[in-house]
């Protein structure tokens, strides 16, 4: 019997970024095949290729023994591929039965709706997966795991043979997880193949038959779960040679600049965060996606103000309830996703750089374009921003240079604490190196730097200390000499050094 799905040396690039460098993968009927890898290893790209959302640049896809040259979302669905995402994509105001029907029924505009039929089918599907709620319930009244069951019912109803589950248990409690595992096993019994993505290693050991580890867009290993242990898995995930060198730390660690004690913010889902950042120190903030790193940054910067705990700046207790107060206290945040929020693309380089310092630069009401240009030119020279001039719109710059503009805006405020959220995401290697050297230079000048990064080598290479977050709080603070293994283990919630 041929495998349900087979990928052979699939590659995919986005611009200059090579997301997949050659992934081979196969899925047998009736198995749970776990897919594992750190942030940015290529898991989501791989899923999107299997569901037809992206078309690969190279390699072959074979489904049920037949080679598929052109896979689109529609074709993938017809061939029995279904994906259940971490956040269920249901219509909250429609009933369960309607939601299921929308996925399964003909899309013809004048197709008559057979309401009793819809209901019966939904009830039957829910029954098959052991869900105990009425098909007439509106989806918004369902809990997260119940919504996930609806998603699974949809895939069952559609007769899916290849089911992808992307971190289905990330937001579930222990008991809900057990229920879900049972449903997954039932699915497999009926001959369905499940691709299971999770960061919870215990879950993978409990549920999966085989596991494939992705690293830097390559499938580095596939094998039965029984032959592996946690430590071996982590080694496979992070075990790469360091291909990039980082500028050495030369800063002298000074006084504590910012210090949080049991900081919490219910809106951001973080709690009991205690952390000191010293002048001249680069603290790396590591953790998996969703661990609360960006939320912590937003709380420190006053966007989602803290509602518990205390914050000290230079030993004095402060309160930060808005970004204006944060700026006034010398805290700066270079946000992630610069194309959306870091810079304003239509505006000039100069206007972007001076955005946060209007009050200082223009004490009168009128803008002084010469002063602004001078300020901007200084940063353009200092940070080596490649632009045709201070008046060029930021949209005309390359990604790395846009990021430098975003950093420049906050350097202009002369901050005591600089928070960088994914400062090198999506910039090329050269610009990355420049940004790293810039961070070092700033630390040397006595700035306290808190750097969020999902790039593990970057965290290891740049940080004097590493704070690891998990589940909305800091679970470990490691010194710079620690290994990728230690960081990954802490982020995954294992005992450090459990070799």
């Amino acid at each position, binding site marked *: 019997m041929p495998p349900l799905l087979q990928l052979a040396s699939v590659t995919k690039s986005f611009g200059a970024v090579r997301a997949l460098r050659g992934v081979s993968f196969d899925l047998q009927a009736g198995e749970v095949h776990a897919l594992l890898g750190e942030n940015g290893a290529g898991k989501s790209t791989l899923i999107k290729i299997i569901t037809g959302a992206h078309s690969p640049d190279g390699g072959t896809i074979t489904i049920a023994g037949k080679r598929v040259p052109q896979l689109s979302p529609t074709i993938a669905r017809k061939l029995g591929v279904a994906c259940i995402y971490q956040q269920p994509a249901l219509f909250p105001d429609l009933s369960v039965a309607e939601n299921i029907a929308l996925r399964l029924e003909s899309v013809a505009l004048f197709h008559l709706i057979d309401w009793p039929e819809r209901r019966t089918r939904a009830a039957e599907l829910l029954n098959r997966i052991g869900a105990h709620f009425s098909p007439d319930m509106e989806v918004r009244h369902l809990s997260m795991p119940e919504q996930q069951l609806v998603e699974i019912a949809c895939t069952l109803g559609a007769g899916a043979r290849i089911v992808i589950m992307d971190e289905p248990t990330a937001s579930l409690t222990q008991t809900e997880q057990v229920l879900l595992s049972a449903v997954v096993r039932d699915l497999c019994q009926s001959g369905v193949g499940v691709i299971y993505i999770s960061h919870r290693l215990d879950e993978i050991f409990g549920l999966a038959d085989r596991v494939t580890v992705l690293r830097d867009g390559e499938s580095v290993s596939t094998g039965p779960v029984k032959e592996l242990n946690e430590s071996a898995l982590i080694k496979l995930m992070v075990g790469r040679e360091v291909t990039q060198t980082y500028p050495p730390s030369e800063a002298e660690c000074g006084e504590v600049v910012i210090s949080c004690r049991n900081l919490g913010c219910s809106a951001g889902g973080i709690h009991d965060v205690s952390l000191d950042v010293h002048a001249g120190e680069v603290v790396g903030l590591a953790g998996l996606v969703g661990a609360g790193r960006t939320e912590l940054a937003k709380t420190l910067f006053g*966007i989602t103000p803290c509602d518990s705990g205390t914050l000290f700046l230079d030993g004095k207790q402060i309160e930060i309830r808005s*970004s*204006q107060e944060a*700026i006034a206290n010398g805290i700066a*945040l270079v*946000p992630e996703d610069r194309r*959306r*929020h*870091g*810079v*304003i*693309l*239509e*505006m000039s380089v100069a*206007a972007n750089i001076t*955005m*946060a310092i*209007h009050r200082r630069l*223009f004490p009168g*009401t*009128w*803008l002084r374009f010469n002063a602004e240009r001078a300020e901007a030119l200084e940063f353009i020279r200092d940070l080596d921003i490649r632009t045709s001039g201070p008046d060029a*719109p930021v*949209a005309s710059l390359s990604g790395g240079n846009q990021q430098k503009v975003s950093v420049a*805006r906050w350097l202009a405020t002369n901050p005591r604490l600089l928070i960088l959220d994914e400062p090198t995401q999506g910039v090329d290697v050269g610009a990355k190196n420049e940004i790293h050297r810039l961070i070092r230079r700033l630390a040397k000048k006595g700035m306290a730097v808190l750097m969020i990064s999902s790039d593990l080598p970057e965290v290891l290479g740049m940080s004097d200390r590493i704070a690891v977050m998990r589940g909305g709080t800091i679970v470990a603070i490691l010194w710079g000499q620690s290994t990728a293994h230690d960081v990954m283990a802490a982020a995954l919630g294992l005992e450090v050094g459990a070799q």
Partner: protein
Amino acid sequence: MKAYSREVSVALTLGGLLLGLAIFAPSFYQAQPLLSLAAREAPTLVAACGMALVILCRQIDISIGAQFSVCSVCAGLLAGAHWPIPLVLSASITIGASLGALNGSLVAGLGLPSIVVTLATMVTWREGLRWLRQGIWVDLPEGFQWFGLRQSAGQWTIIILALTVLVLLALFMKHLAAGRFIYAVGSDAEAARLAGIRPRRITFAVFVFAGALVGLAAMMNVAQSPQVDPNSGTGLELKTIAAVVVGGVAISGGRGNLWGVFAGLLLLACLGPALTHLHVQAYWEKAIQGSVILLAVVADGGHRRNQGSP
């Protein structure tokens, strides 16, 4: 130059229209009718400046026509009660600003979508006014029309007032931090917030300011006739939005300037009389105006596709 391509193309179209008129219908260029036309459109220009700020801020205000009517009637009643002209003027501006403040607090304070909020206030003001006044025209006292000046002097006063508002606002938008903040909020409110700007405050202020400009515009219109028409603001929102869009301001906010709005308004204002002088039948006028607006929106879409922004 490239940054102003939209404004330049509107200005060129306007130039082409005026040139065509000079060749084929020189009768268009007569001092008195042109002066009347300019004075008639001057209040629209002032209101359009306010609308431009609102749209640059990625909002919309469709209640300005109703605001205009309310301000006009109030100004007429106060003038009838023998208030001096400067007091009537400031009262009209204050009323406009308060109506704008209500829109602003609902949009910025409660985060409601501006199209729904201003639709509701539009209907409320319009129907409230109709119920209170039963559609009665307000007679103005002697010496109020043209601010007590001769007609041509009054017309010039109104035109110069409108142009002053335009020039000052255009300078403010470029040279004041506040102007830049409006562009920033309109481009990306979240990015602006992360840069330490307060988008809600800016949005509120823009609605108040637009309301105040409507109050001023209403006064400039009231002073042109012996009576106040309680429906004088009907359709003003469409005229001003059309001028703003034709003038190259992106309906999605953050891009465009007031010079473009000026050119757009001139183009739309000249189109009607021009067609008459070119002996095009009157019922084509609206259709042609509509086509111009459609063309502007299509050009805007093309511009955005070229920029590659979503």
